[in-house]
């Protein structure tokens, strides 16, 4: 099955209980054995900050600039995101089981 990444960006993700965990902002991949494999999906402002290259900005500086601080995004490992319906992505786990923004 093919999925278009650009159609995933901005999609709202819910967990297995139907609770919202943000919108897909970034997709991280790594090259393994000649393949470019998806590692994780980033939601919320975590992904947006990475796209703006602000992920390493000191937290206090981000706060001064009014940028939301840690805890506002999730990292969804590839195996935890169900893309059976790409228009309605959902995780296979509860949001409490997902790693939060670590920078």
């Amino acid at each position, binding site marked *: *099955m*093919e*999925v*278009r990444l650009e159609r995933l960006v901005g999609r709202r993700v819910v967990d297995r209980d139907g609770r919202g965990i943000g919108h897909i902002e970034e*997709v991280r991949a790594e090259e393994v054995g000649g393949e470019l494999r998806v590692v994780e999906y980033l939601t919320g402002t975590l992904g947006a900050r990475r*796209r703006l290259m602000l992920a390493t900005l000191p937290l206090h500086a981000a706060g001064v600039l009014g940028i939301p601080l840690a805890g506002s995004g999730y990292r969804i490992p590839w195996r935890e995101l169900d893309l059976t319906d790409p228009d309605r992505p959902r995780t296979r786990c509860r949001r409490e089981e997902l790693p939060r923004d670590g920078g």
Partner: protein
Amino acid sequence: MDLVREVLDSRVLDRAGQPIGRVDGIVLRLRDGEPPVVTDLALGGLTAVNRLRRPFRGVVAWIVTRWGLRAGRAYRIPWSRVHDVGIDVTVGVDERETPAHAWERRIGRSIVRRLGG
């Protein structure tokens, strides 16, 4: 690699460094029990239009195809032909193989015909 920040919407250069378009889309193949893989980059066609939300997608698609601004399928470049991802994405294709070149040739012939050349 961050696919949205580093690849999506980046300019694509052919092996000679000539621009041939932008990455309008990235194709993922889902596999049971294994991580999704990037199979192709998609350039042109209605790829960029399809990123719009309804109802704008349908309206814009009608407009651009009605006026011949974009048509048909996107041009796909297999990920295996991507040489480098930096400020631009460099791929191992020749600009003459691409629809962008075909479109330019068509326009050029049309202009020359009108000039009587």
